[in-house]
């Protein structure tokens, strides 16, 4: 079978799989009946609905002709991985290293996602953003975010 629209094919598959997973997962919870709907009632119905919709998108992707096969195109791996990694690093580092060390680290890391990387620019961004964030979030909005590294037992 030939895929007529790649984007639709993959999105249909995504909806189908997620729908089935939710419907299957909700069988763990009491279903109840329509007069007394249980915790599994609503998610089961929706899971089935999503699977049906996914199936329909999939069917369309395999039968209806679309312009040029509707390809997904090049995946921007570098920005994707770098940004996702930068966010994760932020989550891991902030409670331990504090704002003053985490921000320059994340700024430098995320700058790798762009086409150009200049140490001078990264340095400027780091300083401006760290001081700015301190002023805005810790000093101004009084968020409870650690500023300096937390030493264990210290």
């Amino acid at each position, binding site marked *: 079978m030939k895929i007529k629209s790649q*984007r*639709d094919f993959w*999105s249909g598959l*995504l*909806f189908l799989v997620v*729908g089935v997973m939710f419907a299957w*997962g*909700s069988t763990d*919870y*009491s279903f109840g009946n*329509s*007069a*007394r*709907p*249980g*915790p599994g*009632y*609503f*998610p089961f119905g*929706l899971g089935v*609905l*999503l699977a049906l*919709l*996914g199936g*329909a*998108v999939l069917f*369309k992707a395999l039968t209806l002709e679309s312009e040029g096969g*509707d390809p*997904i195109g*090049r*995946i*921007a791996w*570098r*920005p*994707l991985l770098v*940004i*996702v*990694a930068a*966010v*994760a690093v*932020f*989550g891991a580092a*902030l409670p331990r290293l504090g704002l003053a060390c985490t921000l320059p680290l*994340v*700024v430098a890391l*995320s700058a790798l*996602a*762009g*086409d*150009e990387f200049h140490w001078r*620019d990264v340095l*400027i*961004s780091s300083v401006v*953003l760290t001081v700015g*964030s301190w002023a805005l*979030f810790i000093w101004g*909005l009084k*968020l*409870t*975010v650690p500023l300096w590294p937390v030493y264990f037992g210290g």
Partner: protein
Amino acid sequence: MDLLNNLGVGFHTALTFQNLLYAFFGAVLGTLIGVLPGLGPVATIAMLLPSIYTLDATPALIMLAGIYYGAQYGGSTTAILINVPGESSSVVTAIDGYQMARQGRAGPALAAAGLGSFFAGCVGTVIIAAFAEPMTVLARQFGAAEYFSLMVLGLVGAVVLASGSLIKAIAMIVLGILLGQINTDVDSGVARFSFDMPELTDGIGFVVVAMGVFGFGEIIANLGQPAEHREVFTKDVKGLWPTREDFKEAWPSVVRGTALGAILGVLPGGGALLASFASYTLEKKAVRNPRIPFGKGAIQGVAGPESANNAGAQTSFIPMLTLGIPPNAVMALMIGAMTIKGIQPGPQVMTSNPELFWGLIASMWIGNLMLIVLNLPLIGIWIKLLTVPYRFLFPAIVIFCCIGTYSVNNSPFDVYLTAACALLGYVFYKLNCEPAPLLLGFILGPLMEEHLRRALRLARGDWSTFVTRPLSAGLLIAAALMIVLVMLPSIKNKREEAFQEEG
């Protein structure tokens, strides 16, 4: 006069020093993110949600509202000067606005956009004030079944407006509702889909979803595209004041745009984006023999859509304030903000928090006044901003979004979830799946389940309760009609055309 009395309460609240300050802050920030391409009001408001914990409800909402309509002003500046919409609702402004800038008429274009927006903002505020009370009275007759049907209508409305495939957009809504099912069931106390992770039993925060899918997803998508060459017409902005001829041509467009935008803003799924597209189409039909043809720098093509998007931005507050139902993603975040501050959104807000309700409305007018000052005489500052390269901007956005998600619960887990949502956001971008319906479904999902289950219990398990209660039936029929209308071949083509112009 009740209305005057209420507005009096509103202005009394809005004119305190603190509230004026936050309105101003919101307007400045809104303009800023409107001017900067790649950062929209959804991401910004999501980013600021954690910070409102320390604020009172009224200044917090005044500030967030200011960001939304401020972005409508700022977006037009970018559209006119560099042909890149700073904001999705100013896509059509770029068509004629940029042409005007190329002919050295950037000043009149900016003035038409600003003054049109101001007029629309004033009218929009009056409309909200006038319609809020009757809508609230209507809302009091709503039971669980009606609320459920209304949310169905709202979600369908959101789908009709999503560009691209209808069925995919519906699937995105359902997916959003399902993601909202990861929580603890209110009735039975059972933790659902938590995979034994305690963090998931409270549900995924919508800040996490909004920030991941919109904020980070957009950054990744932007970086994936080759850097574009930007031509900024900074030196040409002289002589801001439009000529007498410009005025004569622009004012009917402003009035038409305002009327159209005000109507479309109230509709579920409506708001600024749809209003500006519809207005451009209307202007092309209404102005038979333009002095300068559309697409070549017609002032009507700037004045109409800009007025419409601001009017739509204002009136989209009506369903949010009176029914507690968000017509678009920004309003969904506003509801989230109210919930954070312990205010149950819905018709009772007007009576239980009159200062908040009327103060917010009054602050919109004040905010619009501030914006016209910010955007016309001070235009030079914003133009300078446009020369900041993206490589300085995106690390800043990353940082702010990270701090925002972390500080909601002071939880690293939320930040990891956001990273996962960023991945998901990029997948949706690549697969041409609109994320806005997903967010709406995600936010309305738990409410829908609650009302559905309550309605069924009240009707002793009889599903026909949704069609036998007249108000509920009417809402469902309206939703069905909307789907049928979009599927009709003639409209389907028109809709595709409208979204084609976007590209």
